[in-house]
């Protein structure tokens, strides 16, 4: 039986307007500021609506807890509004995959009560007790916040490594940016696409530069694991990669593109 195919729609959920580029490309372009979007991906096919990441909640929340980020997140690009324009209600989403549990990727998980949220065990364990440097990034209890991924009504499904979620949708554990980051590989009519989360923030991380074949994200936990992840990803078959925070992802409304 043929493996089902899917399409991938990148969803624009607002942006960071003056983001320090070296936070994306570790040790490169210090002081350079860039526009960097918050993204979710709507994966559709085989009768399923799958959401990869749920994006930031709203500007008020960002301003309050993540004041170092200059962001533009108007209400009309909230995930529910964006899905509405796609003709989808929260109950139409079959399940969610979270690439990792940083706030900008899971802050609307509570908008999908009862829906399964696939995430990695290592990510959950770290998110509960991160080092001080990452408290706010995870909105962890240590800084007095309540992370949305643990909110009432949400339904975590905890994975332990690489796994097929449904035919044609697989996740790969890719530690580095966070201890339990995962990439999502989607089978399309044009081959595999890899939704990379923040393991690859922007295309340049994967394409590399004159010095390095791949460049790790500026935010990371363990660069040795990160390098192992890059080696693992070198061996994963895919046609195109979709980074977690690159405006160029939005050049095409739908993947695979012509």
């Amino acid at each position, binding site marked *: 039986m043929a493996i089902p195919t899917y399409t991938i729609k990148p969803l624009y959920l607002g942006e960071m307007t003056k983001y320090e580029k070296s936070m994306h490309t*570790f040790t490169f372009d*210090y002081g350079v500021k860039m526009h960097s979007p918050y993204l979710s991906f709507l994966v559709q096919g085989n009768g399923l609506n799958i959401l990869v990441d749920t994006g930031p909640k709203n500007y008020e929340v960002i301003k309050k807890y993540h004041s170092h980020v200059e962001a533009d997140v108007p209400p009309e690009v909230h995930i529910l509004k964006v899905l509405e324009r796609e003709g989808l209600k929260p109950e139409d989403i079959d399940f969610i995959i979270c690439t990792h549990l940083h706030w900008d990727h899971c802050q609307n998980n509570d908008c999908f009560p009862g829906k399964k949220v696939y995430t990695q065990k290592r990510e959950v364990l770290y998110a509960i007790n991160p080092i001080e440097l990452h408290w706010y990034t995870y909105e962890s209890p240590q800084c007095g916040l309540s992370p949305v991924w643990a909110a009432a009504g949400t339904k975590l499904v905890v994975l332990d490594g690489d796994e097929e979620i449904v035919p044609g949708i697989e996740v790969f554990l890719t530690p580095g940016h966070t201890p339990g980051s995962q990439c999502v590989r989607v089978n399309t009519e044009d081959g595999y696409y890899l939704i990379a989360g923040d393991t690859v923030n922007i295309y340049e991380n994967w394409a590399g530069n004159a010095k390095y074949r791949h460049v790790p994200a500026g935010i990371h*936990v*363990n660069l040795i694991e990160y*390098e192992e992840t890059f080696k693992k990803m070198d061996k994963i078959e895919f046609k195109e990669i979709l980074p977690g925070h690159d405006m160029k992802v939005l050049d095409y409304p739908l993947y695979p593109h012509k």
Partner: protein
Amino acid sequence: MPKATYRIYPIYLGEIPEHDKSSFTYMVDMGKKTTCPFISFLLLGSNGRKILVDTGPCDAEWAAEYHMPLNIPAGCELTAILKERFQIAPEDLDYLICTHLHWDHSCGNHKFPGKKIYVQKRELEYALDPLPIHRGTYESPQYGVVSSWVKAKDQLELVDGDTEIDDGIRLVLLPGHSDGMQGVLVHTEDGEYLLAGDCINLYENWTGNAKLRHIIGGLHSDVKAYFKTYEKIEALERDEHIRIIPGHDPAVLEHEAYPVPHTPV
């Protein structure tokens, strides 16, 4: 209790004139430029010991080709300074300690033939096969050059973890900036001093800011291990009231020697 006490003399060996400050303070002050002085430390013991901690950078031409432009003023060569300022020849040293094998701390290692150089075993293991992004920093074999520490590799005296190597001289493993970074705990008349190497680049790394108790360095391999190491230094502060001397802070050079003599009131 150690019997010997030491005086610690910082020695200035030039600097990187344009250094991104966030490579000292991870994710803090990105795009802000600062200088990065190279500092070796001479330890002179009441028992007559002469110990050198770190041997500084390569010369400016080598750095321009393989690293970055440096400013090394005339007279900043390590053996010349030891001779002129301290009347110490290389053969007069008892031994050397390398906090870690980054080029800016180990490029003078070959200038002290026959002398033992204390390094952590983990540091050597990592230096031989570092991550691609650290190959230049170590001048590792994969980088395509033969670094000074490789030339002097037969002198390396490997230690495995925290070790008391001499009366009043203890090595402490401080992974983070590099995998096998070690600090040197030096017994002085004024208590224990920690030469923190690049585990603490600047005083600011330790004093922190409004949001963070401490700020780790921007150059590192394992952020989590770095935080564990800072907990270890906190414990030393609590238990032994150590004083910290950072690896690259210009303010370290404001004093000729540590402990700084008390000025009479």
